[in-house]
């Protein structure tokens, strides 16, 4: 019982390493390729920093929303309510700031708190009553949609405090509006938490093996609870940035963000750290799709093509990622 045969090389043929590396950066490569193509077609208007700075800023709410989704998704829960939470948050800002004249600082705190409350309500039903997360968040989506319509009288509320607008799209750093940096900060923080902290490991184990996590001393319910709250708060933050970008509160758009954000979360799980929902991947996916849509729009290509692009990119990327791993059952979804 002394011999220890190393099967390492045997188990991981050299080709595999390259394949995996390729998979990690494939989406980035395709992104660069896309930029190159649009750049060649429109060297003036597409290939300039101004264009990218605007893509970065205007998709910041979408990026935050994709991040909001992957936190509970990693812990094994679906949160469909992030779209409605985004709307709720921006509607609250409109109603409280514009109609009730509350100071914007206070209003932002209240919006984030509302996001936390949504997360807590979801968590109550998901964790305490043990109802599937898909069902609960489908229900709260409908509930919040109704509440927002009631609050806003179903109308767009313009005239949000200029301080918010300035803080989101007024100021620029390297030509890029601040909005982007809020999303970037969220990615950095989440990326750090996911990869470099024990909390990130716990999240992952809770998502992949609840009972295992529990027996290893992880407070599973607390981790799931925290993930849902984080999701609510991030979605509310997305709502704040959205309100800041627009300078107004729109009671209907939130749900339009939902499916694309999920698509980005899944697409992001094919890159950087393939097979896992990861913040960097999610954000790369958001901006990859944004680049495609912007480029197509600038070329004046009809709108329906962007829908085809969105759907096609998702399916294609996941399929290719799947093929590099020999079609083994996927760990995501």
């Amino acid at each position, binding site marked *: *019982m002394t011999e*220890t*045969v*190393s*099967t*390492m090389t*045997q*188990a*991981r*043929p050299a080709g595999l390493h390259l394949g995996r590396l390729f998979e990690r950066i494939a989406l980035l490569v395709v992104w660069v390729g896309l930029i190159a193509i649009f750049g060649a077609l429109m060297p003036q208007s597409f290939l300039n920093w101004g264009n990218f700075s605007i893509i970065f800023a205007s998709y910041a709410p979408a990026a935050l929303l994709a991040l909001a989704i992957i936190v509970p998704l990693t812990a094994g829960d679906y949160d469909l309510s992030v779209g409605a939470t985004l709307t709720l948050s921006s509607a609250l800002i409109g109603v409280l700031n514009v109609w009730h004249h509350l100071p914007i600082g206070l209003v932002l705190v209240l919006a984030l708190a509302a996001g936390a409350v949504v997360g807590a309500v979801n968590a109550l039903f998901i964790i305490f009553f043990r109802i599937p997360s898909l069902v609960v968040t489908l229900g709260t989506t409908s509930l919040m949609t109704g509440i927002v319509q009631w609050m806003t009288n179903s109308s767009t509320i313009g005239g949000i405090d200029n301080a918010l607008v300035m803080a989101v799209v007024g100021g620029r750093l390297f030509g890029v509006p601040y909005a982007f940096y809020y999303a970037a900060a969220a990615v950095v923080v989440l990326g750090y938490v996911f*990869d*470099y*902290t*024990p909390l*990130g*490991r*716990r999240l*992952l*184990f809770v998502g*992949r*093996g609840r*009972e*295992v*996590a*529990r*027996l*290893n*001393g*992880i*407070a599973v319910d607390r981790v799931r609870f925290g993930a849902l709250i984080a999701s609510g708060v991030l979605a509310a933050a997305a709502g704040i940035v959205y309100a800041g970008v627009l300078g107004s509160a729109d009671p209907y758009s939130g749900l339009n963000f939902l499916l694309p954000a999920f698509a980005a979360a899944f697409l992001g799980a094919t890159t950087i750290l393939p097979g896992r929902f990861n913040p960097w991947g999610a954000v790369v996916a958001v901006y990859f799709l944004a680049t495609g849509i912007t480029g197509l729009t600038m070329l004046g290509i009809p709108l329906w093509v962007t829908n085809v692009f969105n759907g096609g990119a998702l399916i294609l990327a996941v399929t290719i990622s799947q093929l590099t791993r*020999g079609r083994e059952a996927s*760990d995501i979804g």
Partner: protein
Amino acid sequence: MSDVPSAIGRVAEPGAPRALPVLDVADIAKTFGGAKALRGVSFSVAPGEVHGLLGKNGSGKSTLVKILAGFHAPDHGGRLAFNGEMVDLPLKPGDFRRLGMSFVHQNLGLVPSLTVLENLRFAHLTTARSGYIDWRAERAAAREALGRFGLSIDTAERVDRLSPVERALLAIVRAFEEIRVACAATGKPGLVLLDEPTPFLPREGVEKLFGLIRSIAATGSSVIFISHDIDEVMTITDRITVLRDGALAGALETAKATHEEVVEMIVGRRIARLGTPGHQAAVAKPAFLRVSGVAGGALAATDLVVGKGEILGVTGLIGSGYEELPYLIFGARPCRAGALDFVDGAHVPLAAMSPKRALDLGLALLPGDRQGASGVDSLPIVDNMFLPDVDRFFRFGLLNRRAMVREAFALGTRYEVRPNDPAMKLSALSGGNAQKVLIARWMNRNPRLLLLDEPTQGVDVGTRVQIFAALRAAAAAGMSVLCASSDAEQLAEICDRVLIFARGRVCAEITGPDLTKDGIAEACYASIDLTGRTAPAAPALAS
């Protein structure tokens, strides 16, 4: 002995009977990704024969079984004949049923969230030609089948509400029922494949199972029996085929072989049976932990003491409650009452116990359900190894991945995990190697008390010996161990003391020279009389 009739035209192995074999396979190979699970296995099973299929963990037994179930497609080139009829590989789903095979799979093959009726009548419910299910008739058929085996389980109950024993029995009843129907339909001998059916069965269940096996063999049908319990195999089989690393290691006629020969063929080298060393002078160890009044599940208020550096075994008939003990002490399952008193004065009411608290107190638990409760298959070995310890690698605000991998590699080397690549997913390891990783996880923390539930279930003899040695060494260094197991042989080999449970209470204590496999088994059966009960706590098999 040469020209044995064989549908696939090869020379049969020595000792093979002359009748047309029920099952005849040749050159079966299976590659998973890059790993070869089977490398050209050939053997045959004669009508009426009980055929043992043995091998270390990962040697490919279950893979072979699953190929016969049409679950895995074997590599190209294998051949299969059933009752002399050549069958195309891979088998299509459900082919096995047409041929006359039935299975008890390693994990039983039941759907937990569905009812006993649905699971038991699986074959009929999913293949009936009539296009209409007569539920009344199905229920009657199910009751009749259960009744034939002396089982009384509500057919409308969900399988996940059954006890492990009931579940195992259900799977066994199903396999024997299906083979009965199949043989009646084909008029030819059938084949029942039992992949480690015994770990969950109480002794009398095993005996009843053996009775069933013999009766089915008497009708001319055959049985393939897989187990890591050599004694069981010696008792029930006529012949034995041994796999090693996916290849045929040899074949034996049971009657002509000894226990030691079988073990040697399995592991490929001689292993000294640990026997019963050191039990003669059971020196009383100083107490480390006093467990008082613990009650939960089937366990009534129970007191016991674990010594420092002691390996304490707990066992009993299934349903006697001993198997709950590790989970209750660890706070993994709700406790009705009870408290722990540590030698250092710490007093912990069990109602307030949680896995987190237990870990802080220096306890560790290795659950019996490896995939469901012990490790996460889809995550890397290194993360699985250090799951409770990640905080240790979190320095200066960063998780030190490099250090984790380095330490995991060292641990892997120490516990002979093969292959020892910490970045691989746990699922890439065989069951036994995965178990080594999980044991390493806990041993590495130097717990004061290690709680084990069936630590070597489904683990081959070679690996078992390794695990035992590691436990001994740790105990010698002062770690206490509480091991719940139904495996008397294992308890006899490693324990300093064994407590026998009956009806949720400790009813006997075995130490010293009595601490043998037979001694423990006897005590278990005596326990029925000791508690004066007339009925086992769990539904039993009527004779």
